């Protein structure tokens, strides 16, 4: 199971659960690249068992919410326009 976190600005209720949407997540795998950000299209749920990977939500100033969610990554997105990669 992969593990990620994401930042939701002020209120977890702002996030529409179970709907495919673009979001930025951080990879929490214990490697040299820990905290690498990824832009993805994904679905997420506050039910920790609904999708295959773990997602830890944080509020916009880094506040730790403390309860795990789950996430399904549908697509990895390169955010940099092709001409500037």
């Amino acid at each position, binding site marked *: 199971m992969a593990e990620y976190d994401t*930042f939701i*600005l002020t209120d977890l209720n702002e996030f529409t659960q179970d709907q495919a949407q673009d979001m*930025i997540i*951080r990879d929490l795998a214990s490697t*040299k*690249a*820990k*905290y*690498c*950000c*990824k*832009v993805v299209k994904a679905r997420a749920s506050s039910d920790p068992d609904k999708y295959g990977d773990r997602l830890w939500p*944080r509020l*916009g*100033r*880094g*506040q*730790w919410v403390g309860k795990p969610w789950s996430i399904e990554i549908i697509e990895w997105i390169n*955010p*940099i*326009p092709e001409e*500037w*990669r």
Partner: protein
Amino acid sequence: MPYKYYKDNREFIKALDEAGDLVTVEQEVDWDMEMGAIVRRVCEIKGPSPYFKNIKDYEGFEAFGAPLATYRKLAISLGLPPDTPIPEICAAYLERTESGKSYPPVIVDRADAPCKEVVITGDDVNLFDLPAPMVHGGDGGRYLSTWHMIVGKDPDTQDINWGMYRQMVFDEKTMVGPVLPFSDMGKMFHYKHVPRNEPMPFATVIGMDPLAGIAACAPASIPEDEFCGMLMGEGVEMVKCETSDLYVPAHAEIIIEGDILPGIELEEAPFGEYTGYRTSPREPRTVYRVRCITYRKKPIMPLSNMGVPTDEGQLLRSFSLGLEMEKLLKSQGIPITGVYMWPESTHHLVVIGTAHVYTGIAQQIANLIFGSKLGPWFHMAVVVDEETDIYNKDEVIHAISTRCHPIDGIHLYENHLGTPLNPFASPEERKKSKGSKVLFDCLFPRHWKESDKPIMVSFNKVYPEDVKEKVLSNWTNYGFKD
């Protein structure tokens, strides 16, 4: 004749060690918060700089924390004795930067530039090969650039800018960070490159010599590379970048080259900021695309840890903001006796001593400094008379508490520029970089009759000279320590 200075980070580390202001940490430390926590504690106890020899996952790299977070280290960086009093450190800065002498950079060959010992370009570039620390718990990412400078060039005037703009590692080849529109680099990027849809070349210099760091922090009115030469008393040695026509200090530890991209923003922050809070939230910010990394063999990465006082951002920014204000006020003929910005105020509060030669002088001072390019970075001005020691907290607090009339002495300035990092500002004000400012006028009104003015009661003021001399000469005889 150059002043005594240290050409690179390594000479400076040696000088700190000799002065007893360095601790060499041989034990392995984790880049994931442990290194940051050590540096944070060092800042809070004003301790010696830690020199980390062994970083988890990053064999061959070293790190150096809290490089300039005390006045002792600042004095050493300027080639002065470590215990030099603050006013003398200020005098040295003013003497060097007001001398009128110009020292343009000295360009060196690539072969003579240690920062080119290792060169990585193209697909091999990976920011995660550098030991970027997770500085604080709760940060939005790993901040590679905490004690560094970004080199940029105005596309029209060709003016060079060195500035400290924080950079978070986003992915292997991308960094993100705020570039505020009223900053020097912000003016180049947002008002020139963005409308033309042209990427702006940048070079991030990590682990430059300490005087280049001071120059990058200073709100100087001349290009910082020349300003750095003034502090050194000779031109700083520079070398051309691999991927652009920018020049960087040849003796720096790590150089990251690339382009700042127009028309795209990615999430950055939160971050433990110089105010001592995580104030600005995770938001879309400016994107740096990395093309090349060069570094010295066994590079030493500096780590500044912003938070509650005192870190080098607070100390150096306060130091140079205050002294640049002093230059500005003197240039306008204001009879000031000194300017000192308290680092403990996170460069938000400045104290100005002045002769009270005409009514309204405090407001004139406030209007000049709030309205200058220095204005967005602070919001409290305290104006005291020439007899108050601006470096003495007790005297300044006494002046504010006893001479500043709660109505007539406090002047509010609304709808000014502020920064999104001000903790006291409302979320709406932060979004708009809107700020308010306040002047504490601690001068007794000139129109008061001499007979109506309160008399200060202190050892120096209320005893005859012969009594004072007798007391001082007998001090140890009374049983007191000298």
